[in-house]
């Protein structure tokens, strides 16, 4: 198994941006399919499984089916291929839905691949290399740190609500009880962030222009060459799309 986690985040970001931007400018189903297969193959090579994409695949299928239904109901592009009562299905709608589905698959899965393979502190290091002050760059690992804390807080609030018998059986009850779930979370967030910021300031956060991160990132020659190669590939695809 290739350990992609140790690669420079700039290479991984370039790869992710290449996939996202190419999918965004592409109007070609084949190209999108090739991009999607490329992501899946790289994932299999590096991780030996596609397990990490299981949840997002379900969400993408739901989103894809929504796009398909809307296009079938309201799309009027191309030739009619099937008709029943007031409903007419056009072939253009089917193609558009498929194109949309492939595109969202590429842009979402590539971003998820980047997120899984890149440590939050590496992203902070990358931002520091781009001369972003460390007070701002550090916000990335801080986000990663407080995510589980806030999710736990939310679960405690939910437990508290269900234990108190706050009704949550119907959709209307869910909507009516939203303030009881979200407002305590907002107040907790305010208290937690106050404590956290006082604690970091009193430990010298922001005292100097720089700080010692101990771990630093550096672009290795093969990573630099890969970045150049990906950029050139993107330019070539752009030119092909524009002129062919």
């Amino acid at each position, binding site marked *: 198994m290739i350990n992609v986690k140790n690669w420079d985040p700039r290479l991984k970001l370039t790869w992710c941006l290449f996939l996202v931007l190419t999918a965004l400018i592409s109007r070609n189903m084949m190209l999108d399919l090739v991009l999607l297969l490329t992501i899946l193959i790289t994932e299999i090579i590096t991780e030996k499984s596609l397990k990490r994409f299981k949840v997002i695949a379900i969400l993408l299928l739901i989103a894809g089916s929504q796009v398909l239904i809307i296009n079938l109901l309201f799309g009027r592009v191309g030739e009619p291929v099937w008709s029943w009562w007031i409903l007419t299905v056009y072939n253009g709608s089917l193609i558009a839905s498929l194109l949309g589905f492939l595109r969202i698959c590429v842009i979402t899965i590539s971003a998820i691949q980047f997120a899984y393979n890149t440590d939050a502190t590496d992203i902070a290091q990358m931002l520091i290399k781009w001369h972003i002050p460390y007070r701002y760059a550090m916000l990335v690992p801080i986000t990663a740190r407080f995510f589980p804390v806030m999710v736990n807080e939310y679960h405690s609030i939910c437990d508290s609500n269900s234990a108190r018998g706050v009704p949550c059986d119907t959709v209307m009850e869910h*909507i009516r009880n939203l303030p009881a779930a*979200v407002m305590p979370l907002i107040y907790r967030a305010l208290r937690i*962030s106050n404590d956290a910021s006082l604690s970091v300031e009193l430990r010298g956060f922001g005292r100097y222009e720089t700080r010692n991160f101990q771990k630093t990132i550096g672009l290795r020659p093969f990573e630099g060459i890969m970045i150049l190669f990906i950029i050139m590939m993107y330019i070539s695809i752009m030119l092909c799309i524009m002129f062919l």
Partner: protein
Amino acid sequence: MENELALKRKKIFKTDTKSLIGAVVMGIVFVIACQITGQIDNMLPWGKAGMYLINGSCWAFFTAFITLIYKQPGGIIAAEIEALTSVMYSPLWVAFIFANAVGTIWVSFVASKYDMTKWSHHILAQAGVCILGNCIVTVGMIFILEIPLDVAIIETLILIAVNWIVATVITKLAYDAVLKSGLVK
């Protein structure tokens, strides 16, 4: 202390550690709230057709609320945390990067002109958030999801109308409640 008084002085920027970390933590709350409301929308008939009315209102509320509390760059930080994390639950995350940024910048602009004590100030702030934000998301729906133009426009108009009203009400109430709580000075 200067930063604490920024809320009253209609300043646009607040760069102290409290605001930066506050924006991060509140950005996470933004993400959680969007996920909850997204799930609620999915249970509703219009949500199943991709029109997220409650989620959209929640998005507009948090975009304005966080900007009013933490100013800039806190507003953009929280907004982009939501946009980038939404990759886990929305294929339109690319559009959110721009929609959230534009929304928060508009709120900062309004908050720099008004003290945000009146309903009219919040109506104006949410007008920009809902119209600009939803328009950008519409572009995403057309170019990313390949939704037919007429459907996208109708969906957007409905979203703007609902989000504007709902988000204005909850932003005003929640912002006043939080100021009253004394947790934000």
